[in-house]
């Protein structure tokens, strides 16, 4: 396990600073790309990046329409779904483009890295990584979606209560498994991709600097980029699905 710069390292309220910083970095990238794309906004002839962005919005809308019961719910989730899609896409790719790590030989109090962490990570301290390669962060997003879905469900309290036992009381299990798998799926995919890449990159070098696993790295990198893209989509569509399942304002909902 690599070590991370940490706030409050010895308390229960440990905060992974790399993850938090990377969340903001990914957000910044998304905002910058959006602003560049919208720099010369034109209603009549959209150009270049604006086309791509509009395609992304249409894509998100189609995705939400496929999984949600009403147009009202689609309009409700659209900004969040768009943000989630673009943010996760950038987040997942960030760790594949590069992982920056420091080699520390002694525990650093300023970075909040304990000797125990350092011994576990063999001195490696990660400063640049996917925020989604962190279990706490992905579970945080999943729980946020879970809370959001119930908050929306509570707009119709009777139907909300009814849906816990109406088709089958076993559905209550979903209330735990859904957010858990929702978060862990994303974390697992991204973390696995990065972990394997790290292992392969640290393999013995040919001629001093080329890892002998280079072909494997390239194949795995391409596959991980694909998986990262898919996972951003999967997380977003599941979010729409979960929120849509608890949007009881649609017609023909049980």
């Amino acid at each position, binding site marked *: *396990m690599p070590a991370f710069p940490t706030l409050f390292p010895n308390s229960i309220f440990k905060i*992974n600073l790399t993850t*938090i910083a990377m969340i903001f970095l990914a957000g910044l990238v*998304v905002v910058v790309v*959006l602003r560049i794309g919208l720099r010369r906004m034109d209603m009549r002839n959209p150009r270049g990046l604006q086309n791509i962005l509009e395609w992304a919005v249409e894509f998100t809308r189609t995705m939400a329409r496929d999984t949600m019961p009403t147009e009202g719910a689609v309009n409700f989730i659209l900004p969040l779904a768009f943000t989630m899609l673009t943010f996760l896409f950038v987040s997942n790719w960030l760790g594949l483009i590069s992982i920056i790590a420091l080699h520390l030989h002694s525990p650093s109090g300023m970075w909040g890295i304990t000797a125990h962490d350092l011994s576990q990570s063999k001195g490696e301290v990660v400063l640049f990584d996917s925020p989604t390669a962190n279990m706490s962060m992905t579970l945080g997003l999943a*729980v946020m979606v879970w809370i959001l879905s119930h908050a929306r469900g509570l707009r119709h309290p009777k139907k909300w209560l009814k849906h816990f036992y109406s088709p089958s009381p076993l559905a209550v299990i979903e209330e735990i498994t859904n957010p858990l798998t929702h978060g862990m799926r994303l974390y697992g995919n991204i973390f696995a991709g990065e972990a394997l890449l790290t292992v392969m990159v640290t393999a013995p070098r040919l001629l001093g600097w080329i890892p002998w696993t280079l072909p494997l790295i390239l194949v795995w990198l391409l596959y991980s980029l694909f998986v990262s893209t898919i996972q951003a989509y999967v997380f977003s569509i599941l979010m729409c699905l979960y929120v849509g399942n608890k949007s009881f304002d649609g017609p023909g909902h049980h």
Partner: protein
Amino acid sequence: MFEVGTFIVSIVSFLIVFWIIAKVGFKPLAGIMEKRRVYVTGQLTEAEHNRLESERILAEQKRLLEQTRKEAKEILDAARMRADEQSRNLIRQAEEESARILAEGRQLIQQEREEALNAALQRVAELTVELTTKLLHNYVTAEAHAKMLQEAEEKLGELAC
């Protein structure tokens, strides 16, 4: 491993990021797409409306043209009928006029002839009387003379009638 601090701060951070992206990036993007959608929908509606309007106007024009044609035909027919009638009237009037003029002429001729005849008879009677007077002057009495004159006048009167 799972860290409560990272968990909570991640949610907060993501919400901040979401708020910024939604405000700075998504809102203008969605706004311009909505604007375009409204614009295109408006254009389509307007085009449809215009098409219906033009169809309506075309039908109206056709109807008007048909009506005008019918009216023109009616007017022409009426004019033709009136002209026929008028010409018939004219002919009848002319015939009557000519008949009248003819009758007048005939009457005039008759009258003149009668006048001329009367005048001629008068003259003949006078001449006869004069002649007779001259012939008989020597041996006819005044009585016989008067009697013969009367007789001749009667006969002339019969002739004249």
